[in-house]
């Protein structure tokens, strides 16, 4: 078992630009032994994906890797000729990426993708290719593989596409699977399935996996050993248990700290104040989706009632398509309810009293405005506050932990975490009584997530702002919220305090809870008991 499938030795990558050379990877070294799952963890910009591309020798133009630093089965990849390289990439390595849509040619069916892969490396009849494909699709637990075979990428859901990617990667029985953040954009339940599939493949075929992620939970769930990267360099390599129990490097410790913060259930719970800010009464909203000749009514929000009280943090969780976002738009009156009512009981005028942070902050900024203008916009519409606008903007930026020298930045120049903070600052400037946060953690690094999480807690405490936290990430909701609402298919199915939720008897809630990755590799074995249940959930999904 000690054979090294992949050896990376002193890998460096340079980017040559007009401004000169830029070192992107510095002296990266690690091994992937046969049959093991090696995880690379690091924040965005740490060079994880670059490493993966360098391993495949497919860096974009202008990026130059140091030579003779990647060995596959003890063969120097950079020394391979063109044909060998094609063979190496196509048949011996499989890969899965985060973007489930962009990695498919939008104009070709899934079947065509498979056929192309097969015919690139072997002579195969159409019929045979189809048979093989259907088998593969079945293996990644796709129901109706025949239908999937004939589908175009855009006709499948993200989870299905990820399974297809996995099937494509495994189609030619590779020795090594490279998975670059394969589950980041997916619901937790699907993430659990995909992880399980990878683990099973590894166990059954003895193949190796190089798994790239920023989520320590995933690492805990899957990895045998871990490579920690920071700013293009490897800072620590360790077996997974050792990493969690005895981290050596400062950066690893920091990561673990953030992770803990994110997964910790708060001590305090319950309501502080029962004065309601907003009450939702039997709200209902349906969209009509016309498909071919029949109309399909989609009940986005179906008879939902709840209230949010002052100073309270309420979580609204559910998987994608459960109606969370529609509900937030109804609350904001960007759309109108069909039935029922939403009553505002705050002391500020409604438009000022409820503020919103969109899941994609970049899209919610006018791209031609700089930070000062974006944040200060609200003041322009509330005349009485117009004086010393500049000062107020600076103050609110400070409040969200941003320095004032970003005032002149444009949205695209900000990092993901900064954008989220700017959006938060814009909302806070009007001193709202209720903040609606729509998936604020989507696409954020763990450190940013943890930082924003504590920022939210702090704001809640100092500003006495109530928060509605909308997320599919049940972990974060548990860590932040006092009270949690669970939605499924437009309906509210459970409402409970954060602490009580973990003991919920509701089947759906239980399933959501069970698909959370473990917080420590040591707890991995217990999870096996839930496998049967997961199987069931999959069938229903």
């Amino acid at each position: 078992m000690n054979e090294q499938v992949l050896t990376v030795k002193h890998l460096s990558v340079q980017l040559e630009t007009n401004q000169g050379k830029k070192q992107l990877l510095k002296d990266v070294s690690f091994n992937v032994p046969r049959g093991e799952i090696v995880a690379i963890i690091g924040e965005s910009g740490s060079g994880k994906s670059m490493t993966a591309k360098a391993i495949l020798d497919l860096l974009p133009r202008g990026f130059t890797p140091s030579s003779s630093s990647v060995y596959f089965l003890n063969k120097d990849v950079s020394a391979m000729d063109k044909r060998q390289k094609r063979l190496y990439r196509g048949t011996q390595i499989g890969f899965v990426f985060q973007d489930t849509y962009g990695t498919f040619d939008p104009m070709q069916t899934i079947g065509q993708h498979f056929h192309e892969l097969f015919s690139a490396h072997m002579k195969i009849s159409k019929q045979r290719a189809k048979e093989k494909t259907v088998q593969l699709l079945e293996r990644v637990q796709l129901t109706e593989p025949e239908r999937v075979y004939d589908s175009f990428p855009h006709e499948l859901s993200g989870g299905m596409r990820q399974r297809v990617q996995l099937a494509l990667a495994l189609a030619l029985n590779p020795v090594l699977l490279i998975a670059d953040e394969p589950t980041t954009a997916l619901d937790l339940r699907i993430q659990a399935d995909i992880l399980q599939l990878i683990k099973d493949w590894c166990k059954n075929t003895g193949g190796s996996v190089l798994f790239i992620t920023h989520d320590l939970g995933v690492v805990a769930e899957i990895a045998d050993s871990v490579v920690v990267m920071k700013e293009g360099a490897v800072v620590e390599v360790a077996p997974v248990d050792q990493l969690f129990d005895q981290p050596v490097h400062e950066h690893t410790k920091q990561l673990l700290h953030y992770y803990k913060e994110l997964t910790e259930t708060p001590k305090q719970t319950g309501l502080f104040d029962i004065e309601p800010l907003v009450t939702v009464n039997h709200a209902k909203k349906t969209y009509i989706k016309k498909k071919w000749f029949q109309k399909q009514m989609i009940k986005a929000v179906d008879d939902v009632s709840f209230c949010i009280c002052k100073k309270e943090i309420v979580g609204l969780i559910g998987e994608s398509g459960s109606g969370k976002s529609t509900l937030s738009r109804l609350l904001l009156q960007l759309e109108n309810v069909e039935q029922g009512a939403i009553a505002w009981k705050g002391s500020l005028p409604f438009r000022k009293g409820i503020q919103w942070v969109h899941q994609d902050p970049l899209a919610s900024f006018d791209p031609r405005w700089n930070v000062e203008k974006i944040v200060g916009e609200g003041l322009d519409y509330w005349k009485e506050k117009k004086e010393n606008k500049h000062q107020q903007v600076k103050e609110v930026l400070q409040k969200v932990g941003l320095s004032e020298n970003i005032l002149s930045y444009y949205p695209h120049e900000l990092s993901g975490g900064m954008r989220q903070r700017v959006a938060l600052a814009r909302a806070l400037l009007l001193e709202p009584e209720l903040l609606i946060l729509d998936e604020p953690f989507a696409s954020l690094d763990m450190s940013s997530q943890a930082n924003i999480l504590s920022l939210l807690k702090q704001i809640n405490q100092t500003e006495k702002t109530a928060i509605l936290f909308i997320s599919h990430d049940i972990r974060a909701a548990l860590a932040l919220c006092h009270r949690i609402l669970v939605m499924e298919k437009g309906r509210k199915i459970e409402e409970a305090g954060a602490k009580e939720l973990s003991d919920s008897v509701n089947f759906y809630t239980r399933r959501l809870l069970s698909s959370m990755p473990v917080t420590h590799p040591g707890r991995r074995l217990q999870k096996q008991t839930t496998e049967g249940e997961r199987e069931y959930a999959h069938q229903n999904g």
Partner: protein
Amino acid sequence: MRIKMGKTMLITSVITSMVLIAGCKGEEASSTSSAAAKQLVYGTEMEIEQVNPVLDENQEIDSLIFRGLTKPTETNDIAPDLAKGWEISPDHLVYTFTLRDDAKWEDGKPVTAEDVKFTLDKVRDPGTNTPIAGDFSEIKSVEVLKENEVQVTLSNPFPPLLDKLKIGILPKHLLQNEDINKTDFNQHPIGNGPFKLKEWDNDHTITLVRNDKYYGLKPKLEEVVFKHVPDPNTRALQLKTGEIDLALLEPNQMKSVKEGEGFTVHTISTADYRAVMYNFRNPLFKDAKVRQAMNFAIDREAIVKGMLSGKGEAAYGPLQKSWANSPQKQMYAYDPKKAKELLKEAGWKKGSDGILVKDGKRFEFELVSPITDPIRTALGNVVAEQLKPLGISVTPKPLDWNAIKIDQADAFVIGWGSEFDPDDHTYRVFHSSQIGDGLYNMGAYRNDEVDQVLTEARIADDQEKRKVLYGQFQKELAADPPFNFLVYLDALYGVNKKVSGVSDRTLGHHGFGILWNIEEWDKQ
């Protein structure tokens, strides 16, 4: 809808099929070409859209298919054609024509007096959309006397009638129940002339073939092809390559057309002149001295040399190409000094901006020209520039034909001139009885002596006497100019060297009439 294969195949096949179509077309085209032994190809400037002598004037092809009662001779006299002969009543009002007996339509039916009456009635019929009704407006009635005798009665004496009766006669038996404006006949003519239609091609290339039933001199040519080549340089090019044998060229080409190799250029004089017509409704032109001054201000020789490359003549009057010519050159010489004096005499003085002023009125007018006619538009510019030094401000105003209202314009670059009887474009153009809607004295020129002389000349029997009368007329016209005569244009015909028989008869507007003696043409 779901098609998974062969998209590239389809695109390729579309392209291939386009290429194939193109290829096929080529094959097809090649098979149509045929070389006749004696074929004259005439590159025409205008596209021929219909062949019907009643519906338009000045279309060469008409006279090849349709013959009229008369035809012109080399000296622009009148010769009998369909008519064997005629008698004119002493008051010049009743003309009796006797038709020849051997004239037949292509379908074998004889040409009769009924056909003549039908044609002359049609051209005067208000339902016929024709621009030449005016040429026949003096006809009061047309009677059939016998099968081969027809009588035309006029309201007023009209000497050019015999010239006008060269109009092609139409077959009554084919057209009496048709709407002449729209009938198929216009594209499938059945005629009585030396040639008949063989083929009318898509791009308006028309092939005529010798008509063996023709009563007159058998043409030596077997086929005449009318091919539309609108661009004069292409015509020159095709003359050179021998693609066409005959074509009208333009003066501005003379610099580049190299005679010699394949063709010669016949410079044929025409009766077609250009002049500035003064509108006498504008008091500015009342004083004859002013108009004389403007005559002296124009350098006609320079225009001929510069604008026309010498292919034309300075114009001194309306009858310059007629037997009745009596030149008054001294009144049209280029003499700016004299012009200045005359203007001074007339009381015009230069104002502060250099423009002449009299009684608070500035000497300025608009000179209208049809924008589609480059020569007239250029003439308008040149006249404006040449009058400028005198202190006369002329604004050239080129307009579309439909926007031109001549009776409202100050002045207009006009084109007249007839190669026929001197009465043709004089009485109608300068006689004061011809002022009014639809009549030709559009500038409202009025001169009693001119009126009198023209009327007398109309019914005078003796040519010598007429010549004297027209001499008087021209003298008066120079003293009291209705027009500022500018230039006569030459017609420039490029003719293949192998073609013989082209005569240098004075031609009409735009070189019309070159094919008048087509029967005598030959090609080696």
